[in-house]
């Protein structure tokens, strides 16, 4: 997807990809944490894809995945990369530049 043609922060669309390694505890934790954040703050304006790099290692190389779990925000541009199980909600919101829902409304 050409990031320039994608929606920006103002339009409120988020394209997120979570890269995980199988069903590891960190993977599960990251998915749960992300799901929670998205439902709380990005209700209805996000798309989330989860990729298991143990099944698709070539994607890990292509996307320069080093640490796992990794969350990549492709849209809005610029791309943002966040690693960890996303247990620190505040840091996650900051890194993904997600404005908390109560302020957005």
């Amino acid at each position: 997807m050409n990031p320039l043609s994608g929606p920006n922060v103002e339009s409120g669309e988020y394209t997120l990809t979570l890269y995980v390694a199988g069903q590891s505890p960190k993977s599960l934790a990251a998915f749960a944490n992300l799901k929670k954040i998205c439902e709380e703050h990005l209700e209805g304006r996000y798309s989330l894809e989860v990729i298991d790099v143990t099944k698709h290692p070539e994607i890990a190389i292509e996307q320069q995945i080093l640490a796992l779990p990794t969350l990549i925000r492709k849209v809005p541009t610029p791309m943002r990369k966040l690693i960890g199980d996303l247990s620190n909600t505040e840091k996650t919101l900051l890194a993904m530049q997600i404005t908390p829902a109560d302020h957005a409304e």
Partner: protein
Amino acid sequence: MPAPETDSLGKLEKALTGIEGFDEITLGGLPQGRPTLVCGSAGCGKTLFAMEFLVRGATQFGEPGVFVAFEESTVDLAKNVASLGFDLVDLQKRNLMRIDHVVIDRSEIEESGEYDLEGLFIRLNHLINQIGAKRVVLDTIETIFSGLSNAALLRNELQRLFHWLKEKGVTTVITGERGDGQLTRQGLEEYVSDCVILLDHRVVEQVSTRRIRVVKYRGTVHGTNEYPFLIDEDGFTVLPVTSIGLQHGVSNERISTGVAELDRMLGGSGVYRGSSVLLSGTSGTGKSSISAHFADATCRRGEKCIYFAFEESQAQIVRNMRSIGLDLQQWIDTGLLIIKASRPMHFGLEMHLATMQKMVGAVKPATVIVDPVTNLGAIGTSGDIGAMLIRLVDYLKLNSVTALFVSLTSGDKAQEHTEVAMSSLMDTWLLVRDIELNGERNRGMYVLKSRGTNHSNQIREFLITSQGIELRDAYLGPEGVLTGSARVAQEAKEQHQVELARQEAERRNLAIQNKKRSLEAQIAALQAELDAEAREGEAIEHQTKNQFRRLELDREAMASSRTKERTAIRSDTADKQ
């Protein structure tokens, strides 16, 4: 699946690196299936070492490899090693290599909560499986410490990674930047306990020398010295000092030095093939001229000669030698003679040594001339040059190359002193020196030593003429050795005496001839007399024989006549009766 780390004898298995010299000092390469840490400061050649290990593994030993680059991009890496003749693109096409550039940009990565480096494991695993890699390089993995903040976690992960690589049974080279007070910045040496190699790049008196040292190699003997190494267009070359022992074969064949009289001084037929000859002397004593004769003699035999000149250019040598009647250009044209002229300061000692070794290896000459070896003193300490010469001499002997080393002795030092104390390395030592006498400066030459030959103990005067070098018997008189005009005068005197003696002998010879002739005449006269006597005797005998015969005949005649008479009488009587 863990690779077998030991063979049936319990010996550590090793993976050949294919890096020239390195496999010798480690007695077989890096520990097979285990990680090795290669550390050193920036620009010391870590990446190249690692890359050559992979490329040679893939091309020479059938072991494909994965290169994980943390610092350079794949394109840069390929470009950087292309100058060494490594075609990474082709290797990747042929599935002999995979390169993965791991990009770590701190500004791009945020952290939230716990993570691990499983992504790196997955990538590495994928690439290893893709081509069945047996070798892995991580260059320079410490970079991740600058990209990620949780150092404790990273240490854990690295430990896990090294362990995992060992489990995989891949031979791994991990490079690390030299840190303060420890081998690597992050103390990686704590985790890689099998083999640690240190690369060093030192500049002493403006000349840089690269050195390599095996700091630790668990479970095996290895050379512990610091070995010089170089990086040139053929890659990495380690120059082991001690790995070449005194095991070279010897030849009984003698080869000419190009000066017939010198060959005679050395016991008849020159120097042994494969021996090392030192030619020392003060400046202007004709060392280069002797060298040129040596080169000329080599080419005349149809053999190759490399002339390493540190003082003169090729054109200059050719011109100068033409003035003493040697045409070196013809040998250069036919390719038998290679004159390699360079300034000693051009590069470091090691580079000189490697260049020489490489040339000797490629050209395979019968003889090598280094003129003068003492000029290398400008770029190294005497100990360094000594070490270098040992290696060079060993290398040449191993290849049965006869070597002539020219050494310049400064006038104020003892003639028997060589600048770099290399005399003990040499088999034959020729010394040329000035002999100052009667206001003249003449050249003398003698054989100081020559192992295994019955060499002359005389000092010969040697002359450089337009026909080349001539050695003359020096005149030994009551006042010592006479040279130059004194010798010429003495020779003239001797020649006069010889002439007188010759005339006297001629006279006596003539007298003897005369006497012989007169005696011969006498003998002839006597012989004639004897012949006459003999003839007379014969005549007398003949006469006597004739007389006897006549008497006989007379007697017979008388007897027959008597018988006739008697018969006649009888018939007369019968008639009468």
